[in-house]
């Protein structure tokens, strides 16, 4: 009997002690963790100051990607309507975020610094297709709050 009361008291003691200790979890999504400045999350495609896309559709990111997550289709821009800063640009640019292992090799391979991995990491969707980020989506990257 006494043994039992002792045990309960000890257990409750641990519980109450833990109540006042600092917590390992955070109240997501109201609160968010601070990440390392070079955290690698979802990709973006950057533009230069004039608003021209930096990506020239060279496909080097596609070639280097160990997960084969990227697909690039290049095309020639009309002379009077440049899309990127040269006459070659990517018409299609897709990243399959399910395949991607966020290694950052694409960013490293890009000769124009067009594809970059942002800290944004809130990746979830109800179907697989929605996890393929197309060019439109990558050109207007979401900001991590």
């Amino acid at each position, binding site marked *: 009997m006494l043994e039992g009361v002792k045990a309960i008291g000890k257990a409750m003691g641990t519980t109450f002690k833990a109540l006042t200790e600092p917590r390992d979890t955070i109240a997501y999504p109201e609160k968010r963790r601070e990440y390392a400045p070079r955290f690698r999350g979802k990709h973006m495609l950057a533009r230069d100051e004039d608003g021209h896309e930096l990506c*020239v*559709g*060279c*496909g*080097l990111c*596609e*070639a280097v990607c160990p997960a084969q997550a990227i*697909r*690039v289709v*290049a*095309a*020639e821009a009309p002379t009077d309507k440049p899309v990127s800063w*040269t*006459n*070659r640009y990517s018409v299609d640019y897709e990243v399959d975020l399910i395949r991607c292992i966020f290694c950052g090799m694409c960013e490293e391979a890009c*000769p*124009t610094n067009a594809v970059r991995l942002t800290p944004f990491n809130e990746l979830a969707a109800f179907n697989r297709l929605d996890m393929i980020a197309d060019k439109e989506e990558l050109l207007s990257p979401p900001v991590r709050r």
Partner: protein
Amino acid sequence: MIRLTIDDREITVPEGTMVVDAAQELGIDVPIYCYHQALGPLGACRICLVQVEKMPKLVTACTTAVQEGMVVHTRGSAVDKGRQGVLEFLLINHPLDCPVCDKGGECFLQDYTFQYGSAAGRYDEPKIHKLKDAAINEFIIIDQERCVLCQRCVRFMGEYVGEEQLLLEGRGVETVVSTVSHQPMDSQFSGNVIDLCPVGALLSIPYRYKARPWNLERAESVCPHCPVACTTSVTSREGHVIRVEGRPIPGHDWGWLCDRGRFGYDFGYVEDRLLNAWLDGEITSAAESTRTIGSWLNDTLEQHGGDSVAFLVGGQQTMEEAYQIRRFADEVVGTSKVAVSRSVKGYLPLGLNGTFEDLDRADTIVYLGQDPYDAVPVVHLKVRDRYRDNPGLKVIGIGAYDLTRSTVPGDAFVLEPGEEAAFLAYTLAKVAASNPIIARLGEELGDFSPTFKGAKSEQEVETLGRQLLESEHLVLLWDGKDPHMESVLLALRGLREDVTAVLPTFGPANWRGFERAGIAVDYDRLEAFVEEAIQGKIHLLFSIGADLLRDYPDRERAKAALAAIDRVVSVGLFFPEQRELYHAVIPGAGWSEVDGTYTNMEGRMQVAKATVQPPGQSRPVRTYLGSWAHALKKSFVLEPEWDPFDHNAGDLIAKDALPEVQSVPKPARPAMKDGALRLVGTALVMEGGMPSEILQPRIPKYPGRISLADASRLGIGEPGGELGLRGQQGMISVMVAVDERIPQGVLVLPYGVVGSPLNQLGDGAVVEAVSLEEVSLR
């Protein structure tokens, strides 16, 4: 033979071999830019530096011939340093724009820089800027900044093809490659410079920015556009054919292509490509159409028996497909009526068929009826190659117009249309009248004597006769138009002691393969089919990859034949002409969509791999055959696959015995009214082939050709004009231009020109020019 050591390995090679080729034989790669075996050494780029013991300095491996006891080192610090220096110079003014360059990933400048170059340049001065992205014709773009001035392109066009259309302009670092007088290149062989350029200076416009070496697939194939069947490599990306390149076969073929073969690959994607099944003018589902056709077949067999069903096969099918069609006809339908749709009447016995190696050894080459430059372009290049090796090569053109051209000069005999066989029989009789074969050949010639446009003396005819009999290695290129030529060729073979080889330049491209697959290809077969159809003996026709109206020499007869058949089913890539004559049109799959074997004009079988899926509802023929057999509740097992290759004979079809020589009849000369023209048909790859959007700007707007005299009489100026023509069978209008090789009174028109059907009037017909209003009122 010479013995030498390369990188500590001994090799024995023939005298005169260059060090670079000797190394290649050992499997040692020496970098090269300017050197190409077909073009010979030049020594312009200096990248091929190697070290030869006892020589004070590095030498270029491509200009150094092997010597007895030579010791060569292709690697080592001295060599690498030399190459590094060369690359540094090459890169001084290079724009370094690999990310936007289509050659990136398959570029020798990238590869060698990666292997031997230094990591950074030392040159800080501003780079010299030159022309970028400038089109040098409809298909090719030049970027002068990327050029390493290896001169391969310039030498190929000028020395190899003999059409000087590219040159080096400027001096020193300002030197650029440019077209002659800044005019677009119009050579039939222009596209080869893309393959030849080791860097990204000459690039294909239709392939521009389409793919990268790591996201494309390459498959071995052969060109389907003409009977040469050049070996190609087909590039596809994401199920689309996006490029065709030449595929050299070491020791056998350089891998040159003509522009039709290189750029005409988009016929599968043009707007007219059939993607759906049509029944009585309405789109239906594939299942519906197969079911209906199956029931037609069932009904016809029940009512009229197997012999009332016929099959007509066109040029696009593979040998395997032809075999399956024949088996289906034999085993399932039970008919022997399988014919090949053809435009010319001639047949060449296999025993006479030569190979391209004969061209390499020839001392006399005779063109019969057709200029190979337009009809079988790469054969012209092979003849030119021979001419470069042997400037004493005799070339003789015999036809209705001057068949020779300046790239391979020769002697032209310009005759009345359709008299080539009679002329040759006559010529041979002049020099060997006593010979029984010649006597047999000339039995029916009577008092025939040729008339020449442009003077030819009896003397010259005799010389020709002697050349034909006495030359050491005779090759004849025959257009297949006059069936009596077969006997002349047989007689030549019978009389001559040395090699006599004939290369048939006529289509359909794979006819020899059909023959091997068991389908009789002779014209009589086709004629018999047309006759029976007109008589109402055929109730169901399967026209597979064929277009009788387009191919058959007499359009009205073809129309009558099709109209007389109860049900006509067409399987093909496109709608046949006058589709209202067909009851069902179903989409077939073709080149690059089915695996198969094609036989070329040598009788050589070559495999072409499928790279893409057939688009839309189109399916290979075998699928349809299977489902029709199913509809008849008969089993038709396609496995095991038939193997066309005979493993004792290699890739050449084994030769058989030759037929007897028949006599050549005296040609009838139609009466010519004043101002009348005679039509001469010819097969031309550009004008007559399959539709292509890429080729459209190059396909001549004026496919017909007439003499200057006729043109000025008829008021046709530069660049050409439209002419109405009336013959016995109707009227057509043709776009014509002046060609100085055409004699007065002749109008040359390619087969298969959409809108100007030659077979409406007939090959060889006498026609008169009429006003265009009259034609439109017809």
